């Protein structure tokens, strides 16, 4: 998930905002797909420890996304990265609570 993003980040034009938004939106979309996959995976999982582990992995993915969104924002400080960062931060909080309550 992150390897392609990191590669594309290097090639983003510094003076344009639209490509930045495209990348941030794609990162968020991929993260959401992984979140939904996690939900479908844990729904029938009988072992609580495994459920906790899946949510823990989701927390790690959110943190990786937050790091990259922050890098994106540093490269494009006027392009409004906060909205994407805030949404991923909220998702991370929810996944962290789910991780905590199942471990």
């Amino acid at each position: 998930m992150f390897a392609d993003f990191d590669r594309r980040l290097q090639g983003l034009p510094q003076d344009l905002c639209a490509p930045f938004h495209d990348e941030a939106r794609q990162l968020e979309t991929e993260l959401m797909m992984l979140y939904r996959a996690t939900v479908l995976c844990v729904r029938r999982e009988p072992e609580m420890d495994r459920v906790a582990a899946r949510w823990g992995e989701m927390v790690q993915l959110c943190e990786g996304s937050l790091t990259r969104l922050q890098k994106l924002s540093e490269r494009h400080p006027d392009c409004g990265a906060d909205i994407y960062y805030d949404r991923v931060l909220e998702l991370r909080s929810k996944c962290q609570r789910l991780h905590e309550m199942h471990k």
Partner: protein
Amino acid sequence: MSTTPRDAQIDVPPQELIAGLAKLYDTFAHALDPDAPERDEAERAFSRELCAWYDNSVPDPKPSFHEFRKGVIDRCRRHLIATSKFPTV
């Protein structure tokens, strides 16, 4: 028959209480849209009911709230699986 201290504290919960909590749990823990307002409302309602149960109905010596909550969630998950709430994938 209960086999763990955690289960002993919640070994005879009213079925309707578990069913209600299981529905709330299913709504927030398995929400495909994490931004849906009903997802957050369900999590808040679940926490409120759990706290009320823990404070008012769990006898001393109480388990930790973390262990109590985990035990309730385990029962909710078993209820959901037993009542076939989860579709086969």
